[in-house]
């Protein structure tokens, strides 16, 4: 063999290196792709990219195998005329024909009733475009994955601190000293988070993980606090209790930057009970959170306008205003609220010893108070006070779906927001930090349409398909208070469902409740499998026909890159490109990859040719928008406005001349402007020359305290990132929620909940967080079904995407149910045995593995490893379908009938967040004679035309000469 040190890899073929952005997951790392003779030889993290700084994860490093996957769709397909849905019998058609079919159908719908067209997208990053398309079309029936993903996280924190974890903000681990991670396995910021945690640990920071399971990140935590699922609210409230009791809160921060000291009307008989006392005062027009509220001054013992210079208000106490109104500072109400939430009370609920809860509170409080960081950065607040420095309390948190994916998640997350608030760690060094375009007003300005009149034929939607209700009158309901959207978002059932409820779309459309739709268009969403609850039934609904033999969901279009389970149910399949084959804009209008230091957006630029007839989905939308004559896509004369997607990205502006487009970097004629500026014809080129990323680093004085940082807010307004230069006061007490409660109590004019929902709204729209058992647990027999069943993200797999990847599937070929050995002992099964996992709705057969890293009342598995037989280009005998299983079969999309209704979604009553992690099960051994294969099984899914032929026994990849054998 050649001495490897004497030749260079470059000598093996013609080599080129191109830069783009990874999309093996939503993290969006910068990558460098090395090609050899036009074939991908090596993908590496781009060290000059601010996001991942050279790191690459297991998925990112397996991108090559995505290109060669036999699951790739390569041709537009139409269901064969004589074939039934779900049989996966298709014929190839031309793109032209596909466009004709869609055009004809959608044109008719748009002319008659636009809401009969529903566009739902999964784990994509094109919401700016898809959402705009829906709005232009005029349908409100649009949402992405947010509702079934982590809307509780978004809503819970954005309604509290004006920003959130997820893709909106995160922990400042560079400067933090104590880091508490709650209910997170992997999250979106996969690589940056890993890098940050490692650095943090190396610096000697203390890392605590609160999670029923110890894997992944939790594995390297200094302390693991196993908690019973669904009980974090109790833990967090008990910690708040202990902190208030011991005085471990940042008083100055609470007074200045939060509504803690603001006086709340405390008169249960009054219609304004629970609202802030408002007084006549001048405030800016259009302001979202006017400061016409009062503090009670300690020295003079009188009420004064908030932020009156020199005023030092009480946080605790009870007062009476001159007009006789009894009032209490918001913080007093919080103190009263947490009175009963003692650590001892929480011990029983969470399974965490009271001593541990107290210690956690003390560790947080003392670290925040005694290890302050002071950075010599001058800044000016919105009340025109100059500050010589930025101070931080170095306790940080990160939380994700472990908190979010429960039906009590919204309040648990509010409790976390409040904990961060009283620790004084919001947008400060070492604490939580926002990422542009956050912080945003509480709540942000976009609103859904106000009623059915917002939906009109041949007219764009009047409002945003998704928005942020600030008041009951912002709900999207009809005269009777009934929903207008197919997923019932923004109705009284789930008033703050700011990301929609995608998980109920199929069930609702099938049932025709609230109405029937015509065409369901799914993009990058595997709704016949891992993103549906009650998957087995949902698959039946997709094929269900009425008496006349018409499908209950008449037409289903699926745009996907792979032969997913959902493809089998499509009437029309549109083959998308992969991330290495297309242009993409990861826009500031969607969820960009901003850094704490300032806004960042990025692009993808194709590095290889599309396979077969694959067409980027963006091109499909632009084509359809042009054909349908949607205003944004055509000129005045109705002719096509944009040549293609790259052209659209360059030239589209949110409104003519707004200067705001999809990409923030290199705007202006010559690329001299950013965020706002005229279109630049060479914008793509400039991104390409700059690692495909635009990063604007804010001046240091604009990088902290952004909720109240005048300089920053003025800058943000000037660059079109926000509408107001107003302080974004933290909502320790949520008046927004109280308004809904008052409406439910009949105390407010305007929209009122229907009778059956009054109690529900009144209960769950509590202005202060409270703990309640997850909804489903209240309605089922938890003695019979005592165990919590969870899923976790495996680091080396993205949802259902990667079983078609020859390298990644070797790491997770099938999944086990991980259980405590104690459970096996009690139920009489051993490690490796086959068991039944049964919930009140359904049951699955699978294999167990014993584990000591799981809270004994919890069982769990890796998410979405199990596949339907024959899908994903795999052999019907592949382990994924024979030994792998999908937990979703036992999770119901609706609650058992209850007083709120017969078809209430299994979701958080405030936000409509899918309650994936509420499911309760029992586990018992299989009978001796049962087959050793997972149940349920489905008839093997047939390959579709255009998929690569079955690969042989061997695959030998060597870039430049991919050989089959």
């Amino acid at each position, binding site marked *: 063999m050649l001495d490897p040190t004497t030749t260079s890899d470059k000598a093996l073929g013609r080599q080129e290196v191109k830069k783009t952005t990874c999309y093996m997951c939503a993290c969006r790392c910068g990558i460098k792709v090395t090609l050899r003779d036009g074939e991908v030889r090596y993908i590496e993290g781009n060290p000059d990219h601010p996001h991942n700084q050279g790191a690459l994860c297991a998925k990112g490093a397996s991108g090559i195998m995505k290109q060669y996957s036999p699951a790739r769709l390569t041709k537009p397909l139409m269901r064969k005329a004589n074939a039934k849905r779900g049989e996966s019998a298709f014929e190839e058609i031309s793109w032209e024909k596909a466009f004709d079919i869609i055009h004809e159908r959608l044109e008719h719908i748009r002319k008659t009733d636009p809401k009969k067209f529903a566009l739902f997208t999964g784990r994509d990053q094109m919401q700016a475009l898809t959402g705009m398309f829906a709005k232009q079309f005029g349908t409100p029936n649009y949402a992405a994955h947010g509702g079934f993903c982590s809307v509780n996280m978004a809503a819970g924190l954005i309604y509290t601190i004006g920003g959130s974890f997820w893709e909106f903000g995160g922990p400042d681990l560079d400067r933090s000293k104590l880091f508490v991670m709650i209910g997170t396995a992997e999250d979106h910021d996969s690589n940056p988070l890993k890098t940050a945690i490692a650095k943090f640990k190396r610096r000697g920071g203390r890392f605590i993980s609160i999670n029923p399971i110890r894997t992944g990140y939790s594995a390297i935590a200094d302390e693991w606090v196993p908690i019973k699922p669904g009980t974090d609210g109790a833990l967090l409230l008990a910690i708040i209790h202990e902190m208030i009791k011991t005085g471990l809160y940042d008083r100055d921060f609470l007074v200045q930057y939060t509504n803690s000291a603001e006086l709340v009307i405390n008169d249960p008989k009054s219609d304004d009970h629970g609202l802030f006392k408002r007084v006549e005062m001048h405030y800016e027009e259009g302001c979202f959170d006017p400061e016409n509220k009062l503090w009670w001054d300690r020295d003079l013992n009188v009420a004064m306008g908030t932020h009156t210079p020199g005023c030092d208000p009480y946080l605790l106490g009870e007062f009476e205003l001159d007009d006789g109104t009894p009032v209490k500072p918001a913080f007093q109400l919080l103190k009263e609220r947490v009175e009963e939430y003692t650590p001892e009370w929480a011990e029983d609920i969470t399974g965490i010893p009271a001593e541990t809860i107290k210690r956690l509170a003390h560790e947080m409080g003392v670290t925040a108070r005694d290890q302050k960081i002071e950075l010599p950065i001058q800044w000016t607040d919105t009340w025109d006070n100059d500050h010589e420095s930025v101070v931080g309390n170095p306790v940080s948190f990160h939380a994700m779906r472990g908190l979010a994916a429960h039906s009590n998640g919204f309040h648990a997350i509010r409790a976390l927001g409040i904990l961060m608030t009283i620790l004084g760690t919001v947008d400060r060094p070492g604490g939580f930090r926002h990422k542009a375009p956050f912080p945003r007003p509480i709540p942000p300005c976009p609103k859904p349409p106000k009623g059915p009149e917002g939906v009109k034929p041949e007219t764009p939607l009047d409002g945003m398909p998704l928005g942020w209700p600030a008041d009951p009158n912002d709900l999207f309901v009809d005269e009777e208070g009934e929903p207008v959207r197919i997923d019932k978002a923004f109705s009284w059932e789930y008033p703050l469902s700011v990301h929609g409820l995608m998980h109920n779309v199929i069930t609702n459309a099938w049932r025709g409740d609230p109405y029937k739709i015509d065409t369901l268009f799914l993009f990058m969403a595997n709704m016949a499998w891992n993103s549906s609850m009650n998957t087995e039934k949902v698959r039946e609904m997709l094929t269900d026909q009425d008496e006349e033999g018409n499908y209950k969901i008449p037409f289903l279009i699926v745009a996907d890159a792979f032969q997913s389970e959902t493809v089998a149910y499509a009437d029309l399949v549109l083959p998308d490109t992969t991330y290495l084959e297309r242009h993409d804009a990861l826009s500031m209008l969607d969820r960009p990859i901003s850094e704490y230091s300032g806004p960042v957006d990025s692009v993808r630029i194709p590095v290889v040719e599309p396979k077969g007839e694959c067409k980027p989905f963006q091109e499909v939308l632009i084509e359809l928008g042009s054909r349908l004559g949607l205003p944004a896509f055509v000129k005045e004369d109705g002719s096509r406005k944009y040549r293609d997607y790259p052209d659209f990205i360059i030239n589209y502006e949110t409104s003519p001349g707004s200067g705001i487009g999809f990409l923030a970097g290199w705007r202006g004629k010559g690329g001299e402007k950013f965020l706002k500026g005229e279109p630049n014809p060479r914008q793509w080129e400039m991104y390409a020359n700059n690692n495909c990323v635009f990063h604007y680093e804010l001046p240091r004085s604009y990088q902290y305290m952004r909720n109240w940082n005048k300089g920053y807010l003025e800058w943000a307004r000037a660059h079109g990132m926000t509408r107001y230069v107003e302080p974004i006061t933290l909502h320790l007490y949520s008046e927004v929620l109280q308004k809904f409660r008052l409406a439910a109590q009949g105390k407010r004019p305007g929209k009122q909940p229907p009778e059956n929902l009054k109690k529900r709204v009144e209960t769950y729209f509590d202005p202060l967080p409270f703990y309640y058992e997850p909804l489903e647990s209240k309605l089922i027999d938890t003695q019979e079904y005592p165990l919590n069943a969870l899923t976790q993200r495996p680091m080396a797999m993205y949802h259902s995407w990667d079983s078609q990847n020859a390298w990644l599937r*070797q*790491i997770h*070929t099938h999944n086990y149910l991980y259980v405590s050995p104690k459970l096996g002992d009690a139920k009489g099964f051993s*490690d490796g045995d086959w068991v039944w996992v049964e919930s009140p709705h359904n049951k699955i057969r699978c294999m167990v*593995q014993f584990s000591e890293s799981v809270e004994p009342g919890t069982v769990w598995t890796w998410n979405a490893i199990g596949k339907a037989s024959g899908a994903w280009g795999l052999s019907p005998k592949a382990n994924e379908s024979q030994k792998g299983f999908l937990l979703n079969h036992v999770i119901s999309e609706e609650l058992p009938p209850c007083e709120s209704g017969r078809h209430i979604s299994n979701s958080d009553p405030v936000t409509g967040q899918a309650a994936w992690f509420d499911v309760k099960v029992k586990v018992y051994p299989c009978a001796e004679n049962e087959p050793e294969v997972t149940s349920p099984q489905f008839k093997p899914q047939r390959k579709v035309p255009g998929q690569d032929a079955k690969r042989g026994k061997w695959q030998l990849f060597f870039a430049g000469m991919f050989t089959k054998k």
Partner: protein
Amino acid sequence: MHPAFSVIFLTTLIGAGQGLFLALYTGQVYSIANLLDPQDSVTFYAWGSLLALFLLALGLLASFFHLGHPERAWRSATQWRTSWLSREVIVLPVFMFFVMLYGLFNYFGLTDVLFVVRGQLPVDSTLLIGLLATLMAFALYLSTAMIYASLKFLQEWHSPLTVVNYTLLGLASGFTLAAGFAAWTHANLVGFYVGWAVIFTMLGMISRFASLYRNSRIKRLVETSNAIGVKHNRIVQKSQGFMGGSFNTREFFHGKSASFVRFMRNSFIVLVFIVPVVIMISAANAGSFHLLIVAFVVQYLGLIAERWYFFADAQHPQNLYYQANG
């Protein structure tokens, strides 16, 4: 370890071939020393050598099935300085060469006395060639056994008993075969060979039992805690990092149940030692060729089981990294 059939056949076949040759040569030495009747050099020594060569060649052939690249097998002779495998690879053909010479010289009757030692011991060329072949036979036992015995991590193998066993079991099977061969050629050496075969079988039994006893009480020098460097007495592997198996799970595990392994052990004890001895003793007087061949076949089958067990019994420390059921 995973018992590879190529290696099982290689070691048992050449072991028997070596033993057979040594038996022939012992016979010759005895006869030269006038302790036994001399035999016909063609029918007995030449055909006997051919039989030995046949076994050796079969073994060699089997060994090729073990190689990924048999066409490059010649390369394996290059590292004799450090590798017992290389030494085996060299010694085996050299031994075969001497056995062949020995057979040819006997066949062509090139047995004229060359010189007489101390006036008593007439030395002919076959005696000299045989002596060299004998040295090679022992060198081969040593090389073969040392391939295993030299791996200090494989504690079951890393013992002088491995060398002793390979040698004694090879001798036992070779002498048993020699007894049968003697009966077939009507040489009056049956009693002689049966005697030695029984002795070698019994000695082999003692040393094999000694190694079974030793191995049953092996104190593991490393545990999972040494393997990953974490001090704790309860460490359980949860994932091997892949699920469809790997070279490590195929090569170092036999994949059979504990009861099957026990069955193989009991089988070889009965088949290698007890049954052949009983058959041989009863056959010795009758001089029954058939019974003696049965004894050899039984013993050989037993040796296959013995070798299978030899591999299956060895716990490779790498297995510490492959304990998960996932």
